[in-house]
């Protein structure tokens, strides 16, 4: 099982991958993860690769190798869609985050693009999380739960 988690620095991408990895370890499975950390943290795209199973060699999931993509941000989900396996599942948050450098960005267009693909798409309403918690902080955990309820 290969799970790719993507989002923006500060959204808790790495934390979400740690939750998944620890759970797999507790189930007695072998798990490897890899993170993009460093310069990319500052407002940039962040991707975490979680690989569960004995037969994974590379720390990173190959293109077309992810069973699941957990996208904490619509455009980042689209950016990483090439990693998805044929017939794979995508959980995407509705909340777009505009680039810190400005410029036009329409998250709806990203969601529309995803809806047009031949994939299993789970749309997670980030605003519901916000209404409940008063912040988006738990969005990462919420997304992990959404995926687990559906497929893991």
């Amino acid at each position, binding site marked *: 099982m290969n799970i790719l988690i993507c989002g*923006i620095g500060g959204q808790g991408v790495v934390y979400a991958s*740690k939750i998944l*990895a*620890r759970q797999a*370890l507790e189930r007695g499975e*072998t*798990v*490897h*993860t*890899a*993170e*993009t*950390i*460093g*310069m*990319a*943290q*500052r*407002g*940039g*795209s962040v991707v975490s690769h979680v690989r569960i199973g004995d*037969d*994974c*060699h*590379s*720390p*990173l999931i*190959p*293109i*077309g*190798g992810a069973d699941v993509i957990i996208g904490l941000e619509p*455009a980042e989900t*689209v*950016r990483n*869609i*090439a990693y998805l396996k044929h017939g794979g599942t995508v959980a995407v948050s509705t909340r777009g985050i*505009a*680039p*810190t*450098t*400005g*410029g036009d*960005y329409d998250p709806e*267009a*990203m969601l529309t*693009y995803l809806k047009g*693909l031949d994939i299993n798409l789970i749309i997670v309403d980030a605003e519901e999380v916000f209404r409940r918690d008063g*912040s988006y902080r738990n969005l990462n955990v919420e997304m992990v739960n959404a995926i687990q309820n559906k497929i893991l």
Partner: protein
Amino acid sequence: MPIRLLMGNEAIALGALAAGVSVATGYPGTPSTEVLETIAKEIKKIEQHQQETGLRSASAYTIEWSVNEKAALEVAAGASYTGARTLVTMKQVGLNVASDPLMSLAYIGVKGGMVVLVADDPGPISSQTEQDTRTFAKYSKLPCFDPSSPEEAYIMIQDAFELSEELHTPVLFRPTTRLCHATAPIDVTDVWKTITPEGFIKDPKWVIFPRLSVKAHAEIEKRNRALSERFSDYTFNAIEGRSENFGIATGGVCYAYVREALKRLDAEWVRVLKIATPFPFPQTLALDFIDSVERVFVVEELDPVIERELLYLAGASGRTLDIYGKEITENLPASGEYTVEMLTVKIAAYLGLPYESPQAPELPPLPVRPPVLCAGCPHRASFYAVKKAMSGKKAVFCGDIGCYTLGNAAPLDMVDTCLCMGAGITIAQGIARAEPDTTAFAFVGDSTFFASGVTGVINAVFNKNDMVLIVLDNRITAMTGGQTNPGIGKTLMDEPTAALNIPAILRAVGVEPRVVNPLDLDAAIAAVKAAAAESGVRAVVFEYPCVNVEKPKNRATVNAEKCTGCGLCRREIGCPALKIGEKAEIDASLCTGCNLCGQVCPFDAIEVTR
């Protein structure tokens, strides 16, 4: 023994502790930073539990962020002279700084096992260069280990210490970014070796002289020949697979990529030579491999180290063999990071197997997200003040290594040069000498100032060079995640220590600085203007802490009645918390209330609540 989920860097740290390391030094640099941080964390844990267990004493350990990599290596070398086991950590460009002592130490040797961990960064993902420490190993004639996974790194670092101590030589240990930042479940031991250093024994062998060097050089060459033979039997150097035709030679994290690609191609029968010790190269093992196949595809990132060794061995021994790789046949890129996908395509072609790369989906236009200075970053204010002060004047802005390299981005556009640690200060002097009608500025952060900036300032004073030094003192080594440095008053182990005062250091070398809070925009601009108007070595020290050290609780808000939506604030300073719709909007989750935007707004439309 507990299974722990460990990042490659954590695995290396715990392996080093298990091997009996008691002195660990380093300078922060991605992707190596977490090694020393993990060691510090583990030792702090001992400190907390010491009274309960009474087993180990934290005071037996010396763990420090040194002022730079050269200092780190020399401190570790001194400790090794006494018999302590020592670890030095750095990124690949740090090795350039440490190479002066290391080249000589290769001749002098050590007593306690000493491992120099140098993390390479193929890509490069967060570095200035793509240099290959395996090549440095050959140049410095030092044994080098190149692990292929975090699991392997944990064991291999312990082997490295044993070898170092046995052969009395520093040993290089070279992971790459993908290994450093990959996590794996690792069976870690709770039992750490205890090494009791014998102490420093006075002996002429510790003093490098040409006579000693001649002898040492000859011995090193002899040792390396023997070591090549020994490495041919080393567990992690191996031949796998059964093909008598197709071979692949690889090492480091590329080994993992090759295994993944072979699995995808259902071609695990290919004979694979895995090189874990690129220097001294395991020649006998490699010759066995050469004899077992008809052709070899060499897969390695950065320099063609394995490829050249195989070419040399085949040529020198008169064997016939087709060798494909990056140098002669150009089957693989000469630079940059490799991926499983790229290698699957190349290996399929090499094996004559069908493989269709997944079609890259057509994507809608995506927002670009370059790294930027944080909202409220004092560097933004400092750059903006200099920009305003020098508006319309001929000036050049020399940058340096740190978060503030990001000052090059629009709209600030305030970094004209960036070379290596500390270079901005001396580059500025060169430009000013050759182009006297230009005001040459050099921006340097606090950590870089201590690491190698202060020597450049002394050079300027000594040689009566003309420059304006701008010190961006944010009281932390921020770029690598917030490490301590000599200006902070706290060591890596959280012990209070002298906080070196940058203005006082500047005064001591003959430069009277202006010390300003960069968030006071008018005062900041005035200070820069005044400095620019003078001649000789001038300095402005901008003091304000990094927002990630203490997140300020202030918030700026937009007064919608006053705001005209002109967007000037965003255009001028490019703060990520600012958004311009019909009116300006401030993202409360990012804003620190620094009020730089408020000072820029011509309509007084931004208010700060404290």
